[in-house]
């Protein structure tokens, strides 16, 4: 314990722990609870049965009533611990409840029916993960379909984004041609025009192209990101021109120069753009909401939204679906946090 405290209060270089350090720690611990708490709560809740979800106040962990199979009864019966009265200390199974009295039975003597005041009994609970919340997403709901739609859009859009943006960035970084500055400024200018202010006409273009209710209607408008072009161009500027010239002397076509020299050397920037693009497309909401109106085309985000919008929110499945949706991003975060944060800090984009 002392070593833990020692470790936590250690500061690089100097020693001593003053009031501001304690306040900082309090803030950070509170922040951690506030940031992770709700997510953790959703993850725990997603393993609860409908009955446990309805319980108020809720339990932290997913508990479910323990049941026993009793001879002579078709269904398993719920098990109770008796806390008072005649049968105090015994474990009985409940057959049914009539008013304030419960008809119960001892699993060891299935023939005898016992009457117990409901105030004298406590349900026996056990930790039980309702994995069925998850499995039913696949069996009863079209979850696989939504997942596929999301994965398809994310992967295809990211591949196209990286390809097109890096080609444009290559042209802007490594060629001198008339109109280069103009094109670059034009692309920078589109940074100023978020798609949200052009929803109506983009919808027209998409519907003219017959892409309403098609994943391509989400993919194409999104792939030419000014952010990506800008990010990659800045990076490619640092690749020495001599390398490209050397490749040209080595009989490389321009396409080969791009593909074999510039692309591999831009790998760090491309990784950042890939992560961004995956994040953008996986999390996209408003535009898919407009373009995809048929439920078999829904992405995960749309499916989640339509689930929660139903009159009687089906929380058990909704929570499971939420968890499955945040899982991939959480993995990306866990493994690539450093990459992402430096990428963002350097480029100032998200």
């Amino acid at each position: 314990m002392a070593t833990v405290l020692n470790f936590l209060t250690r500061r690089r270089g100097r020693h001593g722990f003053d009031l501001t350090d304690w306040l900082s720690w309090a803030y950070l611990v509170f922040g951690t609870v506030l940031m992770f708490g709700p997510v953790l709560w959703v993850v725990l809740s997603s393993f609860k049965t409908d009955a446990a979800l309805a319980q108020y106040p809720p339990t932290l962990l997913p508990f479910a009533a323990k049941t026993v199979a009793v001879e002579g009864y078709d269904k398993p019966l719920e098990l109770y611990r008796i806390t008072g009265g005649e049968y105090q200390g015994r474990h009985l199974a409940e057959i049914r409840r009539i008013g304030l009295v419960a008809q119960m039975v001892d699993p060891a003597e299935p023939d005898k029916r016992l009457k117990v005041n409901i105030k004298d009994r406590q349900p026996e609970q056990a930790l039980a993960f309702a994995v069925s919340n998850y499995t039913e997403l696949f069996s009863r709901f079209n979850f696989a379909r939504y997942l596929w739609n999301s994965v398809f859009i994310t992967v295809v859009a990211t591949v196209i984004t990286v390809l097109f943006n890096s080609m444009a960035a290559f042209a802007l970084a490594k060629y001198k041609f008339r109109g280069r500055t103009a094109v670059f400024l034009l692309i920078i200018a589109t940074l100023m025009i978020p798609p949200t202010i052009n929803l109506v006409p983009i919808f027209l273009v998409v519907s003219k192209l017959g892409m309403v209710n098609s994943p391509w209607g989400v993919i194409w408008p999104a792939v030419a990101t000014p952010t990506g072009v800008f990010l990659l161009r800045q990076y490619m500027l640092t690749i020495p021109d001599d390398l490209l010239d050397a490749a040209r002397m080595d009989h490389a076509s321009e396409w080969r120069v791009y593909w074999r020299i510039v692309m591999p050397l831009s790998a760090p920037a491309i990784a950042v753009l890939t992560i961004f693009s995956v994040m953008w497309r996986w999390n996209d909401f408003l535009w898919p909401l407009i373009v995809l109106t048929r439920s078999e085309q829904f992405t995960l985000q749309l499916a989640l939204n339509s689930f929660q919008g139903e009159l009687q929110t089906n929380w058990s499945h909704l929570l499971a679906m939420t968890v499955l949706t945040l899982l991939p991003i959480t993995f990306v975060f866990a493994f690539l946090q450093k990459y992402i944060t430096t990428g963002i800090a350097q480029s100032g984009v998200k």
Partner: protein
Amino acid sequence: MTFASTAVRTVYQAAFNSLERPLLFVQNLVGMRRVAWMFLLPNLVIFGAFTFLPIILNYFYATTGSDAILLSQRPYVGAENFRTLLACKDYLDPNTCQQDIFWRAIHNTAKFVVLQVGLMIVFSLVTALILNRDIVLRGFFRGVFFYPVLLSPVVVALIWKWVLQRYGLLNAGLEEAGLSSVNWLVDANWSFFWIVFVTIWAHMGFYVLILLAGLQAIPSDVYEAAEMDGASKWRVFYRITLPLLTPTMVVVLVLSLIRAVQAFDEIFVLTGGGPGTATTLILHYIYETGFAARPRLFGLAAAASILMAAVLMVLTLLQLAVTRSRAEG
């Protein structure tokens, strides 16, 4: 791992080989001088179709009426849509306006932007300052605050909806503490509070990151010099950290303003704009008018988005000016 990288390399090679011949043909066709355009073309076509063309079309939608999507079927109405939007006896009282929801949305957006951006900056600054201290597990805590940034808006909204629901965790906690529970998302004031809170919760990590980068760019010898001068902690903060951080703060301010004006996703899922129109913001109005409601009033939506664009344009130009002056200074 090696298998995966071999597979990636094979696909990469195959893609290259299949594309080289046609592109070499194009390269020979257009000549070296114009080969740059060959690389630019795909991106420019998409920019053209989905950004530049729509900018122009937006204007045509804003000046035509009816619920037809095809421009050829839309009658010209001039500035009618703008007049409808702006028809108001008293701009401070949405009830006197023809498009009362539009004006409510504007009021809400203004309130939201001021509150959200103000609080966001305060909290992200405090967090960045603390994370910039010499504390163990600094990397972990940085990750903690950044994690929600990556979550999708829908997921963020659902997480909080689950916590805030009538019989949710928060109310249970309050009752445990002897307080009375509240129906958070049904009360107008509370739900406004929560959309501010949740959007800050979701995006703060991003600004913390930028501020941290700004803090770390302050050379440590400045602090050492101040220490030699015997400056107190607060003085160091007011006279050194804050002034040197100001450019970064302005960037954060402008970026968060631009985002706040366009806030939609989390709020749409969390409150649906309600109760009533208490949390309906401007983008929500545009979406409702243009796409959700029947008939779809594309013209009105386009006109509203042009008004929003004007605000964004000002904010973005501000950002560019700031970034430039920072780059030069």
